[in-house]
């Protein structure tokens, strides 16, 4: 974090601070909206974690601590933009309109996707680190060829930033001046590996080496994330090319529900980050500066609760797919091995509702 290059406009205490380049353009209702989003996705995430503990999900990748990074970036998008997430961007999916139920389908292991990516203009999760970043750049090259006033956004982590595919994306985005915004959520950890293993200087510097802007943002400051992202998206749409935004944040929970972070990191570190909580600082802003009433905040909590309850119900009702469905949509056109497999499975007596 080097001085002015670290964009923060709302402190952990919920105080506004001036930044030479960025100030918040949002009014009370909009800030409240961001708060609502963050509360909801956090609650949703907690519900997923307990569903996993109860054996209802195969896995869950919690976003806790990264709500501001994801909601700030997600809400800066226009409807026509297109997003390419990794596997932890539940907050972005929420902003794009993906339903919580759809988000959890992959984690209940009933699909490898989960939703219609063209409907939401939000791609399905990508598990292989970095692969989606090239897709975003290619999609952005398509936007250019269409002469469309749209931007593309893609997400990856501090760990993924070491992958050749991510770095090649930087080459391409620069060479083709592609309308893409790279959101690097530096949550300090790649499973057990600290971000310092992937880079010895802050990650946002990489962009400059490729000839496009890199900016480090307080990823726990939703106002800063919103403003920086919005400006980068505008730049992209207006032909100004790519931007790398490093959202400096923290993964408060485990990598996934299969992970045991006590093996590699100390509680004290988590404690420090608790004081930088992205939701609490907006709450402080809302109550202090905007004098928001307790009741309004409570209503958000209640709404989140209702969504979580509904989610639980939806998940429990989610059945295993028909085994025969594994033969669907492998190919767009008929294929003899697909027909053969389907026939063999039917002969084995595997049927719907198995």
């Amino acid at each position, binding site marked *: 974090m080097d001085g002015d290059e670290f964009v923060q406009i709302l402190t952990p205490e919920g105080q506004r601070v001036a930044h030479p380049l960025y100030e918040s353009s949002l009014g009370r209702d909009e800030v409240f909206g961001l708060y609502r989003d963050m509360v909801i996705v956090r609650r949703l995430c907690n519900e997923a974690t307990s569903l996993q503990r109860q054996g209802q999900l195969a896995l869950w990748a919690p976003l806790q601590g990264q709500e501001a990074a994801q909601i700030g970036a997600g809400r800066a998008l226009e409807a026509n933009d297109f997003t390419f997430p990794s596997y932890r961007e539940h907050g972005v999916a929420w902003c794009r309109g993906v339903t919580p139920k759809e988000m959890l389908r992959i984690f209940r292991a009933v699909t490898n996707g989960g939703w*219609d990516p063209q409907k939401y203009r939000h791609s399905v999760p990508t598990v292989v680190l970095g*692969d989606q970043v090239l897709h975003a*750049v*290619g999609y952005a090259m398509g936007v250019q060829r*269409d002469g469309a006033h749209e931007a593309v956004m893609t997400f990856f982590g501090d760990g993924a930033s070491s992958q050749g595919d991510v770095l090649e994306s930087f080459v391409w985005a620069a060479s083709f001046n592609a309308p893409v915004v790279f959101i690097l959520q530096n949550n300090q950890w790649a499973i057990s590996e600290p971000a310092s293993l992937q880079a010895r200087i802050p990650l946002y510097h990489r962009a400059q080496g490729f000839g496009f802007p890199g900016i480090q943002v307080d990823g726990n400051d939703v106002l800063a994330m919103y403003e920086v992202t919005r400006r980068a998206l505008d730049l992209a749409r207006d032909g100004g090319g790519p931007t790398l935004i490093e959202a400096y944040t923290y993964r408060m929970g485990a990598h996934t529900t299969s992970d045991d972070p006590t093996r590699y990191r100390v509680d004290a570190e988590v404690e420090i980050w608790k004081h930088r909580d992205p939701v609490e600082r907006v709450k402080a802003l809302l109550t202090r500066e905007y004098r928001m009433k307790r009741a309004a905040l409570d209503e958000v909590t209640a709404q989140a609760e209702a969504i979580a309850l509904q989610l639980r119900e939806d998940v429990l009702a989610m059945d295993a797919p028909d085994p025969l469905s594994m033969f*669907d*949509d492998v190919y767009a056109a008929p294929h003899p091995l697909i027909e053969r497999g389907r026939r063999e499975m039917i002969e084995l007596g595997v049927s719907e509702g198995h």
Partner: protein
Amino acid sequence: MSTTTMTMARALNEGLRRAMEANKKVLLMGEDIGKLGGVFRITDGLQKDFGEDRVIDAPLAESAIVGTAVGLAIRGYRTVVEIQFDGFVYPAFDQIVSQVAKLHKRTDGVYTMGLVIRLPFQGGIGAIEHHSESPEAYFAHTAGLRVVSCATPNDAYWMIQQAIEHDDPIIFCEPKSRYWEKGEVDLDQPPHGLFDAVVRREGHDVTMIAYGSMVKTALRAAEAAEAEGVSIEVIDARSLAPFDLDVMIESVTKTGRLVIVQEAPPTASLGSELAAELSERCFYSLRAPALRVSAYHVPYPPSRIEEHFRPSVDRVLDAVDRVMEWES
């Protein structure tokens, strides 16, 4: 019927041109495919005529070439990717296997992965290492992909167009040693479906299956065998994944003998697949074991000795002798 004589390289060029004229969403992307027209000149003149937005010279990164083609496919474009040589496709392997092959399925059919990956493959041109590989088995093994190979200019002209029109991702293998051989091209009518195997020469003693460069080798062997009274039926597989098994089964059922010829190394190859499958399906018809004539299980050797590595007419005839002598 308007036919004309041209090389396979030219036929591919004309086929690409026609596909680009027919559909504005068709793009070409690859290394040196613009001004240079590709190292084999397959895209010669196309950037001049269709512009830099549709014929894209790519920075040198194969994973990015394929990965961005995936993004373009999601946006509704159909990108024909040129990998400069077979041996340079491996950096893109992850994108091909984990994304190209699986995204249609992963999105329940929402994303159409209509892209074609052109691969000048096989050896025989006296090149240095990595310029003569036969990687088709890697792709055929991968569910979600299709693999085809042309062996004549007419097939080249039509198959490239059919592949571009097709909605599934296709690895399009071009036998580079045949680029400069000429043949008749029918400009009006495709000779076959993209996934059809074709009997190139009829015969009744032995079925011989080949593809790409080896079709010609097989035909030469058949000629030589005929002189010795052995009648060989030569099948050009054309589609390597999936195989058009019906044509093959019919032939083996008739001949009772099978020789498969491929430039690829033997282990877990397409030759293994054909031998396994046809040994199973034609169990009672086969009068001798199905034999595979392949390259050896060694890296592609320096090209001064490559003709000892690639199946030769002699080696093919040797296998023919063996299946003929098995019982009889």
